[in-house]
């Protein structure tokens, strides 16, 4: 996890809020560093994590995780991490008929259906174990990324339904957190993606939006991060708070600074 980002979000693994939906979003840049942050953050917080990893392989997240001080292999072995490797599973599902319902079953279907099998997978992964005392603090669902589901034939409404069910179970029932990444396709006129992004924005407690710089590539500033705090259940009580920082990604960390305050500029 990135300590500077924790500071900006006023949180640590020991005292993170529960029952929240966090939306990660990237526009004209790669926001995957945020996914790596939350994955390592919640593993360090001793949470039970279900990671629906649709766009990269396990080894990719594992190698980056090691740079951030977590071992995904060990977390998986001790039962803390349930990892759905979407790419590998897709190959299994498409080339072989599965005996039992598979979370990515919809890949075999001619028409876009729903994501019920995927939800069942998440629910099963995060359900509390009855025996003895609780090993883990609270459950967390992490998805990288939801936009891929649209490319695989799912409609935006089906994806929103899926998140709705996940929130009901993970956030409300189990008092855990949900973190999802959705791309902002900008002027690509991707209607389904816009519906998904807008729908989730309204439901989220926290939105982290990584944006490429309007002026183009810069060696010392890789982008800017917009942090938006929302109170979806109390829309009239508090105004949404928004902060913007610029950032630079390094080998094992990300540094943040106020606009125009990059160390390279000062």
């Amino acid at each position, binding site marked *: 996890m990135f300590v500077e980002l924790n500071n900006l979000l006023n949180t640590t693994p020991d005292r993170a809020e529960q029952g929240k939906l966090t939306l990660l979003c990237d526009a004209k840049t790669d926001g995957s560093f945020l996914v*790596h942050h939350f994955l390592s953050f919640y593993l360090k917080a001793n949470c039970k994590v279900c990671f629906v990893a649709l766009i*990269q392989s396990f*080894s990719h997240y594992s190698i980056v995780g090691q740079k951030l001080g977590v071992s995904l292999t060990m977390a998986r072995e001790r039962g803390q991490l349930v990892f759905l490797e979407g790419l*590998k599973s897709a190959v299994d599902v498409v080339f072989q008929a599965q005996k039992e319902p598979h979370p990515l079953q919809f890949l075999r279907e001619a028409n876009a259906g729903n994501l019920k099998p995927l939800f069942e997978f998440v629910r099963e992964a995060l359900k509390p174990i009855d025996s003895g005392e609780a090993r883990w603090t609270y459950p967390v669902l992490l998805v990288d990324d939801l936009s891929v589901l649209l*490319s695989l034939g799912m409609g935006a409404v089906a994806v929103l339904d899926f998140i709705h069910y996940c929130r009901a179970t993970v956030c409300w029932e189990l008092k855990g957190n949900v973190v999802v990444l959705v791309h902002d396709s900008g002027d*690509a006129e991707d209607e389904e993606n816009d519906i998904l992004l807008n729908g989730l924005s309204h439901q989220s407690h926290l939105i982290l939006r990584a944006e490429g710089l309007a002026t183009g590539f810069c060696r010392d500033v890789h982008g800017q991060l917009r942090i938006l705090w929302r109170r979806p259940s109390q829309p009239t009580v508090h105004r949404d708070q928004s902060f913007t920082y610029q950032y630079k990604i390094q080998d094992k960390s990300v540094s943040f600074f106020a606009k125009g305050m990059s160390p390279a500029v000062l």
Partner: protein
Amino acid sequence: ELPAPLLDDKCKKEFDEDVYNHKTPESNIKMKIAWRYQLLPKMEQIGPVSSSRFGHYYDASKRMPQELIEASNWHGFFLPEKISSTLKVEPCSLTPGYTKLLQFIQNIIYEEGFDGSNPQKKQRNILRIGIQNLGSPLWGDDICCAENGGNSHSLTKFLYVLRGLLRTSLSACIITMPTHLIQNKAIIARVTTLSDIVVGLESFIGSERETNPLYKDYHGLIHIRQIPRLNNLICDESDVKDLAFKLKRKLFTIEGWRKSLWSFPNLRI
């Protein structure tokens, strides 16, 4: 129609109009590239005039000897030949062309041990895959013809499963796609997200840039749309963003527009 390899120092490579899979020299990384172009598909690259050797080199003015082709281990896939075959087609919402292509690739990966299932008998190698004109009507897809065709998810689904095959085997793939024919911008954005490296070639032929004196020595622009961050938080992004290329019989040069011009005579794609 393959160009003759130059077995001394200089070689180059050529893509032609035929739809087939062929092995292209590649590095050791499992990756997938989507490469869009508006240029005619004849492209050359050349070895360096300096001492550093990098890649394989060809002469586009000569043909590859037939004996060399026959002696090589390669597999071709020409859809019109396969479409009526009895290859078992699993139910899926992909177009039949994409389904058959995926099965063809998966079959080679399995049969020749690129996924570790059958140990490779000879020295370990990487399966290089080349797919041309993906998305065009040649593959039974209609995204080049209609803005909102019935097969709108077929291509992206195909790319996803292909990505899965590449990630789970010792293989690399390069794809060309005629994106100038695809009207649906959303599909292009999704294709980009599903790829690792995305390079665009923009020809000056027929465009207003053809007569621009600034571009008189060049044939087109190269746009590096995306480079991957694989196994890493960072990626190695160059700060030279404006790249132009020129295409000669034995030399394919890419030069960056900035105060100091410099060339990549040995760029290997």
